[in-house]
């Protein structure tokens, strides 16, 4: 619990200027307006830069970080969080360029994380919103993972379950957690960077799921992350996901955890009747992950 509440929103975008403008509109209408709104542009080739610059002329809170090349969502969140940390923010609201927070979404996150600490003394390492798809149903791919004693502090008026993994779609991370655990791993490029990071933050204490903070994720479809769903279009993402999670498994649980993971992936692909050539790609990615040891960058403490 801190009296310091400077808040920075970090939005990573790539060639989705229309959706990004919707996000910036939603941020402008927040009851808890971030002091800094940092747009991290992953070398977009559309009109993103022009639109953000035009908006920045009337919105002094808006900052623009243009990356020279597309380094993926993971690289974008890494660069954005690092920059926002340097700007001295005490809370970092991290989200995608296609997720529209309800007007009180950020306020509810800040309020929850502070009240949880006031009530229970423990400091949540992050707070995650309820992410809904455009039809109001739960967004499958953004479902946080609960810890075994998730209801420990759940009350009717404060139904905040303990979670140890969440996606980079409307999560609030306090500065102390970044100081303690560093930045997201940029080398993951895409997928599992958010799971790895929030699990890393949870070493201090789990995060909380804040259902009253809601955000709408405007994705083409509402699908979870299941290796049974691999098709030609999504294969590249699944390959990154398999490599990254395999790397994490090897780091945290050693070979037994990695083998168990590979077996689970196989089961999903078998059940999903995934073609053999895709399966082989995924196995190769898992093998790459076994020796993939990306560096975790720490921040310089004040």
């Amino acid at each position, binding site marked *: *619990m801190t009296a310091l509440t400077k808040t920075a929103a970090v939005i990573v975008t790539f060639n989705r200027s229309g959706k990004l403008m919707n996000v910036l509109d939603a941020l402008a209408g927040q009851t808890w307006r971030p*002091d800094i709104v940092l747009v991290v542009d992953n070398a977009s080739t559309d009109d993103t830069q022009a639109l953000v610059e035009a908006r920045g002329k009337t919105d002094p809170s808006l900052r623009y970080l243009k990356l020279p090349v597309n380094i993926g969502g993971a690289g974008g969140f890494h660069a954005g969080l690092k920059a926002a940390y340097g700007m001295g923010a005490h809370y970092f609201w991290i989200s995608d360029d296609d997720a529209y927070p309800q007007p009180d979404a950020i306020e509810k996150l800040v309020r929850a994380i502070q009240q949880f600490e*006031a009530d229970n003394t423990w400091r949540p390492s992050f707070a995650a919103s309820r992410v809904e798809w455009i039809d109001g149903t739960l967004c499958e791919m953004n479902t946080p993972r609960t810890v075994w004693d998730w209801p420990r502090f759940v009350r009717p008026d404060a139904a905040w379950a303990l979670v140890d993994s969440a996606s980079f779609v409307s999560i609030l991370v306090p500065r102390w957690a970044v100081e303690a655990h560093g930045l997201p791993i940029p080398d993951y490029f895409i997928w599992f960077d958010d799971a790895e990071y929030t699990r890393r933050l949870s070493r201090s204490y789990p995060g909380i799921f804040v259902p009253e903070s809601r955000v709408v994720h405007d994705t083409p479809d509402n699908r979870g992350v299941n290796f049974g769903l691999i098709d030609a279009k999504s294969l590249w993402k699944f390959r990154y996901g398999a490599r990254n999670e395999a790397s994490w498994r090897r780091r945290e649980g050693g070979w037994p955890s990695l083998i168990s993971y590979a077996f689970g992936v196989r089961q999903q692909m078998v059940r999903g009747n995934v073609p053999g050539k895709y399966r082989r790609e995924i196995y190769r990615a898992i093998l790459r992950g076994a020796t993939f040891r990306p560096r975790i960058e720490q921040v310089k403490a004040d």
Partner: protein
Amino acid sequence: MTGQMTGTPQAMTAERMTAAHIQGEVAEIRAIYDLLYPDQNLTYLFRAGKDAIWGAPEVTHGPHTFRPGEVSANYMGMLRRPGLHPAAAEVTVDVAIPRRPLPHETTEAEAPWRGIRPLRPLQRVSPLAYEQIRYLAEMIRKKRAHRHSTQALPLGEGAASFPRPAEPASDKRPAVLIGMHWLEHGGAEKLAFDCVNWALESGLRVFVVAGVASVQRLAGRLPDHPDLRLIRLDRYLPYELWPRYVEQLVRSENIRLVHIHHCRQLYDSLPHLRISTPWVRVIDSTHIVEYADGGYPRISGVWSEFIDLHHVISGELVDYFRDTFHLLGKVRLGRMLDRAAEPRSLPPVRMQPGQKQLHVAFVGRLFYQKRPIVAAETVAALANWARNNGVAFRASMVGEGPFLGAMRHLLQRRGLAEQVALLPANTDVPALLRQADVMILPSNNEGLALVCYEAIEQGCIPISTDVGSQDEVVPADLLVPLAPRKTVQATVAAVDDLWRDPAFNERQQAEMRRLWTRLGEDPTARELLSQVYRRVAAGGAGFEGDGFDKDIQA
């Protein structure tokens, strides 16, 4: 709205708690520096602390210019207090406000113990071998202890032609400043807490400070009394400013006596105090001679010219001060025992030769000093002994601390989880000792372990390592060697003798009775120190003049 909450009742609760925390700490900080710098123009810079302990205070003199690092993310705000006049000197206090402690920080002062990394494989295979290495390291430190000075620092009396500082007039009742090591669990700390109560009972106003910054988990144990004030110098005052602060406190609060309980900063304040406030009396209490550097008794001896009375808790320390620092009259023994209102008699011991059950007790904070791993191995060896002799075995081990996890793990490994009860620190120890046959105390070092005295009072036989003043309370035949393996073997041998040999058992009982009676004849710490406090409260020096020793003896 930017960076602020809308005013819902729930949010206000969190905000109010934060504000109350900050206001409380700011008031604490200001009370310290407003006293230290009564005339100067004071500027306070407040930062948000990273931990729950340390305020990282920095004091600079002269006009202050903000530098980039001072207004970083942790900058909270600034307050100015004008000096006596606009041209007064400028002083800036840059200090962090520690956050509220997390739950585990208020329950555990230290992280769970793990052996040093290179020796962890050995510790896993043979915990006793690991202990043996640590014991050897302790003995090497003991051999090197002579490197630390045992020469008392001189105190110049000054020449009569120069004026001595005059004692200011005060309309406040006399006060005592009690300096503790910290407000955590421990024998020395228990005495310091007792002293606070005795000083209040004697009519003194009491100021308490601690030398070591910590969460001070036992601060709540200080009595809620209008004449008592805990000042968080440990958290908010740089080391080098302690002497000047103590001088200001002495002058403003009519402090007549400083009582040092293992507080290094107060020892280091003595030169300043002796010269600037020579009317103040200084006493200290010491407990245990550390192997490595002599510990606080050596520090006390080095400062002995600046100290009016050394209170010690054991005969070993009386000898230590005499042999090392050549001190006689101003070293006073005051046992940490309660004088019974009525003469007491000892109950018969429970352990009888040939009995068919054995209940072993261990009571101690689970820090290395008590050697919990050796205690667990001793319990395991006694369980083996009991099995071989057809004796039903159980043990109760009382204590909390960083070794709890390692001790529990070891007992489980030895298959003793069901036979050994691990009990919390607030267990009713006398009741436990009334049920136990023997109590083991395989400590690395002790002053004089009161729990052995308590054990005898409850009919339980203590078996202890031969360290410190343990020979004043434990019969010689029940003192065991310090080397870990020998500790275990000799403890089992002692239990075996008590069990097999009725004459041996009888002899130990007689010896225990003799030692217990002799200890009870010595003055207690309460008698000694209350006497000092009462005399100070009455306006006297505390321990000079006729009748002091006579009163104590009485």
